[in-house]
């Protein structure tokens, strides 16, 4: 059977525009609608996690003033906040949201290759979110085991939600992983199979590269979480002893014996570390495109950027145990994993240099997406540098379990990716809705969020170096080594956190207001080269490209090419005297 490539078979493609409301917006198989569905659900559940962080901060900053939450609630909110933010917000939004929207548009295809499975992916995700939320309504409430869910404590009495809550959490994770696998298969196969003519792999925008590699990481790493979730469920429900050793709990010997809690940690972090890059790689890709577009300059070192993405993807599977230096594992492991951790910093640093060199002497437009992209570079460098401390065993041991860790991971995989999410929403909102987000509100949102997060997390580094332990509901005055300045810092952090959380209302208002009243954007408001801005309609209709698929003639970064009429040349523009290729003029990259 001879096979004809998807882009060459396009004339067979009948555009069945869905007619009914339900088919168009609810049971939709259109990647753009699914992307928006993913985005709305992810942001909604993310807001729940944001509110929980505010409640936790109120407790920590003013322990004797507010009695909003009890110690059990505190642990439950910590757990749910962490899990929601990492998995149900960031992973879902980057891959399900931006991945769905951008892959077909940026690759020049009409949709994902398996649209029905794509739709199922979203509905499974929604069920996973509902299952997670169900944890709040079962007896005992959601699990309070911490987002790492370490056994034995996560399924033994004494931990909040150890009977029902943990089961909801594990079931929700398993469903999420099935949803992600269906989505991830789509993203990877679409990038491999459904690119339009001329779109070679090395002409793809870095956004697509980042999402592509993150999807591969997810497909290979999520099974580890799946395995640990299934085995822990069996321990909790059936009474197996995979993870549970023989211990006594609440004065009674538990009916388990011989299990290995360390085994769970290995499985969890075999997923958990790649997860960091599942979130970071799409952010890396998107930020590269934002910087290049808004600095009107081609990305510096494109090939090196692609190689760095691949290298980070491979290396991310051999660093997992740097989360476990104090777990009691073989100390020689620590040596190995500290080394690989330092090695993975190399491709990451290359990316940072290339971002800086991209905007260096560029025609920088300080638009809102650009502000967020630059904010990301700052924050990522800060978070990355503290990673060097924690990646080394001897330095990590005293800092382990302190606020230094909290500060580090919030900077590097909380705030940094969220800044990119905001930048990306400001950047692509015009394509999704046909209207611009308000610029002034956007700038207020950026400056308050950016500076506010530093007000929150810089003091935490100080607290961490003092040795203030994380996960405490309150700090008793009996703990001698904690000076009064820590309580001052806690109060300061809480006020800053309240401020930053409130400012997000400006963003939400902007999203809604601009949808109805925003300035019409036109097809290509940022004068960008990539394919999604070259559609005939904005927002793009079902099938994306009208009658004919685009044909790509150049890479995604022909900005400010010497001799060109405009300072950008779209990817589907054939080479001509008015639109020469970069190389024709000997421009170096």
């Amino acid at each position: 059977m001879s096979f004809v490539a998807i882009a060459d078979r396009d004339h067979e493609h009948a555009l069945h525009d869905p007619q009914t409301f339900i088919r168009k917006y609810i049971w939709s198989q259109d990647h753009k609608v699914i992307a928006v569905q993913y985005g709305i659900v992810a942001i909604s559940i993310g807001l729940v996690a944001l509110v929980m962080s505010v409640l936790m901060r109120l407790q920590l900053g003013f322990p004797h003033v507010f009695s909003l939450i009890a110690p059990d609630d505190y642990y439950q909110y910590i757990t749910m906040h962490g899990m929601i933010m990492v998995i149900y917000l960031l992973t879902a939004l980057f891959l399900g949201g931006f991945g769905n929207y951008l892959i077909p548009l940026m690759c020049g295809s009409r949709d994902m290759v398996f649209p029905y499975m794509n739709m199922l992916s979203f509905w499974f995700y929604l069920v996973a979110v509902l299952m997670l939320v169900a944890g709040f309504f079962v007896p005992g409430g959601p699990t309070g085991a911490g987002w790492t869910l370490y056994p034995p404590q996560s399924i033994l009495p004494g931990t909040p939600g150890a009977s029902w809550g943990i089961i909801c959490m594990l079931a929700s994770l398993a469903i999420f992983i099935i949803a992600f696998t269906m989505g991830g298969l789509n993203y990877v196969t679409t990038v491999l199979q459904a690119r339009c003519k001329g779109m070679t792999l090395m002409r793809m925008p870095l956004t697509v590269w980042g999402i592509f590699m993150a999807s591969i990481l997810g497909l290979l790493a999520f099974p580890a979480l799946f395995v640990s979730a299934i085995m822990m469920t069996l321990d909790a429900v059936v009474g197996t002893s995979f993870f549970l050793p023989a211990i006594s709990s609440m004065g009674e010997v538990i009916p388990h014996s011989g299990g290995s809690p360390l085994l769970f940690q290995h499985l969890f972090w075999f997923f958990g570390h790649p997860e960091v890059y599942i979130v970071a790689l799409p952010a890396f890709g998107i930020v590269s495109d934002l910087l290049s577009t808004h600095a009107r300059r081609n990305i510096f070192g494109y090939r090196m950027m692609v190689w760095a993405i691949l290298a980070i993807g491979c290396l991310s599977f051999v660093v997992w145990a740097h989360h476990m230096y104090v777990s009691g594992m073989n100390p020689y492991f620590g040596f190995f994993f500290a080394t690989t951790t330092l090695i993975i910093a190399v491709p990451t640093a290359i990316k940072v240099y290339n971002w800086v060199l991209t905007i260096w002497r560029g025609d920088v437009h300080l638009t809102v997406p650009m502000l967020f992209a630059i904010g990301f570079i700052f924050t990522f460098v800060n978070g990355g540098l503290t990673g060097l401390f924690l990646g080394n065993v001897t330095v990590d041991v005293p800092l382990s379990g302190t606020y230094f860790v909290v500060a580090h991971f919030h900077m590097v995989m909380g705030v940094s990716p969220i800044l990119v999410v905001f930048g990306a929403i400001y950047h692509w909102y015009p394509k999704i809705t046909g209207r611009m987000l308000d610029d002034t509100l956007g700038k207020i949102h950026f400056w308050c969020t950016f500076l506010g997060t530093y007000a929150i997390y810089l003091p935490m580094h100080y607290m961490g170096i003092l040795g203030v332990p994380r996960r405490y509901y309150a700090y008793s005055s009996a703990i001698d080594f904690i000076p009064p300045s820590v309580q001052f810092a806690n109060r300061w952090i809480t006020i800053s956190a309240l401020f930053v959380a409130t400012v997000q209302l400006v963003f939400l208002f902007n999203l809604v207001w601009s949808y109805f009243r925003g300035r019409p954007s036109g097809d290509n408001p940022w004068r960008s080269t990539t394919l999604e801005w070259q559609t005939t309609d904005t927002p793009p209709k079902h099938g994306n490209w009208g009658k004919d698929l685009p044909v790509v003639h150049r890479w995604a970064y022909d900005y400010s090419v010497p001799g060109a009429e405009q300072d950008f040349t779209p990817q589907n523009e054939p080479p001509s005297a008015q639109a020469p290729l970069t190389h024709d003029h000997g421009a170096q990259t």
Partner: protein
Amino acid sequence: MSLSAAYVALLTGVVVWALLVRRLRARPWEAQLVSGGGDATGMKMPAAKVGLWIFLAVITSLFALFMSAYAMRMGHGHGGDVHDWHPLAEPGVLWLNTGLLIVASVAMQWARMNVARGNEKRTHDALLMGGLLALAFIGGQLFAWQQLRASVAFTPRDPALAFFYLLTAVHGVHLLGGLVVWARTLVRMRRKDVELIDVRLSVELCAVYWHYLLLIWLALFTLMLTT
């Protein structure tokens, strides 16, 4: 875990070399002719086939992790003051089941060869047989479960026993997923308006999936027999 890490390293190595290296040498900022299809628009394979192979990579990751967990739990059960790993006395019916799955795989391969030759009747019969044998395999596995359940040593606390149930269940669920696709293909084949060529890809992919699950079963069975 080292097994899983090695698998992932191998897989990413294969992906990078086989698929990408040639193209990653390109200098995208230089002039290139637009090629008409082929290279520019993906690999020369149907999307469903690529999708299946990626899915098989995911399954391999899943089972490699289960087997890593098995090995680590076994090591833990041998060492220190914990001695709770007792090798399992595998029920004899597992040998029969293995035989059934091998014949199922052969039947699927036969269907695949016949669909290539355009022989509709034989394709149908072989496909039907492949699926039914897989169903028989699942029945046999359930019988093995029953036998172990009835044995005196049955307790969920026994790690080897728990792993036996877990691994066979996960493998069985994957086979059931394959049977759903198999049933759909069979139903489509029987429709009047569907020609053999329309189901050719489905038959081929079913065969690939059957072979793969056979391989995984052989790996699991070997692991359980030898430990």
